[in-house]
């Protein structure tokens, strides 16, 4: 039984709830409801180092905090990049910021995508909607050390052509010979001539060897569940499938209790999980 007097010296403990101030270097629109912010530390000190899949708690003066995945390059600490979707009061307030404004940052928190563990494997990245943002750091990491991986496939599904994130970057990556990118939308009007259909329909014909594949999926939970079904149908072992979960978070470090999914704290046991660990939870309602 823990004894108060045996605690690690409290004075030496860091204060997880104190934000670090970052300055907005750039902020620009991606699509009609998503935008990207590039941040640098306000005190000119070193920026945080992070792993793909981790997130920060971003604070806007007087408004509040939100957990947002880091969507920049892990090998380039500055600037710190976040892509956000405007869905509530805090994200809307963040949207109103301009270069020179201040943002409070706490993090990085959470578990990472298995980028190192997957060396030697074929990689399938499945992104749904804004789910491409937490996966982009994986792509940066892989391309930085491309030879360590087999075939690399990105399957990206979103609502409509106007919702395609990182358009220019995707077009640039498409021209690479060592990267397979397939994009699909749920609905389209002309002049879209690309795929229309759910992202899961891209899985059966994607080019990868199921026996030596690591899959990383990020998107709405339904999309993740159905993608997993298709991957398993193709023979990808369940323990080679990774997902990123999302829950309400007030602290990001395991104290507030809001992010619990069964016994798991999505903020510190996740948000990236290997599928078998969350399989039962994903199929239970209102857990």
């Amino acid at each position: 039984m823990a004894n108060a007097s045996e605690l690690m010296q409290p004075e030496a403990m860091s204060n997880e709830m104190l934000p670090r101030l970052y300055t907005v270097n750039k902020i620009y629109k991606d699509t009609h409801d998503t935008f990207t912010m590039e941040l640098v530390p306000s005190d000119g000190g070193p920026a945080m180092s992070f792993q793909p899949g981790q997130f920060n708690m971003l604070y806007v003066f007087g408004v509040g905090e939100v957990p947002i995945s880091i969507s920049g390059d892990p090998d380039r600490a500055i600037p710190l990049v976040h892509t956000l979707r405007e869905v509530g009061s805090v994200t809307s307030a963040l949207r109103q910021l301009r270069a020179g404004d201040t943002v409070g940052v706490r993090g990085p928190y959470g578990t990472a995508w298995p980028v190192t563990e997957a060396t030697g494997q074929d990689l399938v990245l499945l992104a749904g909607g804004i789910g491409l943002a937490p996966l982009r750091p994986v792509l940066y990491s892989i391309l930085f050390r491309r030879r360590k991986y087999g075939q690399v496939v990105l399957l990206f599904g979103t609502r409509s052509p106007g919702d395609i994130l990182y358009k220019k970057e995707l077009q640039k990556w498409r021209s690479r010979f060592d990267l397979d990118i397939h994009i699909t939308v749920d609905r389209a009007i002309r002049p879209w001539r690309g795929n229309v259909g759910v992202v899961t329909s891209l899985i059966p014909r994607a080019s990868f060897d199921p026996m030596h594949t690591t899959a990383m999926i990020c998107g709405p939970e339904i999309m993740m569940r159905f993608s997993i079904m298709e991957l398993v149908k193709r023979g990808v072992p369940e323990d080679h499938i990774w997902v990123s979960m999302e829950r309400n978070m007030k602290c990001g470090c395991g104290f507030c209790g809001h992010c619990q999914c069964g016994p798991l704290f999505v903020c510190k046991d996740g948000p990236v999980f290997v599928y078998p660990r969350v399989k039962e939870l994903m199929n239970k309602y209102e857990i």
Partner: protein
Amino acid sequence: MQDLGPYLKQHPFLAGMTDSQIELLVGCASNVKFNIGDYVSREGQPAKRFFFVRHGRLALELMTHDRGPMVIETLTEGDVLGWSWLFPPHVWHFDVKAVELTRAIAMDGECLRNKCEEDHELGYEIMKRFSHVMVNRLSATRLQLLDIYGKRK
């Protein structure tokens, strides 16, 4: 005339059919090509044929009065287009347009219907495969219906 047997055999939809069954199908088959912008079908027109897509991309469109033509789905290499030929009144439910140069094997609906009536083995194999395609399409369409990327109000 080109023997389409080998091309039919290659198409994923027909995987597992016997050579003699493929021969039966050849009798109803013809080789077709659609240029970008060509309409494969129009909504309401008689559905006389269906297609095994070999190469390219076809878009299923529905015309809406307020947003113009909406693309609901695209089909590509390995897909099969059209099941309205199976059941009366045999009319197309969509406009289908080639958005890329597309090559396909067209199958005469009436021809194949007659052969299936005569040869129930063949009929069962064809029905099995179409049912599977429909099940998958239905699943996918349901997901599309949910508008999972849309913002909740």
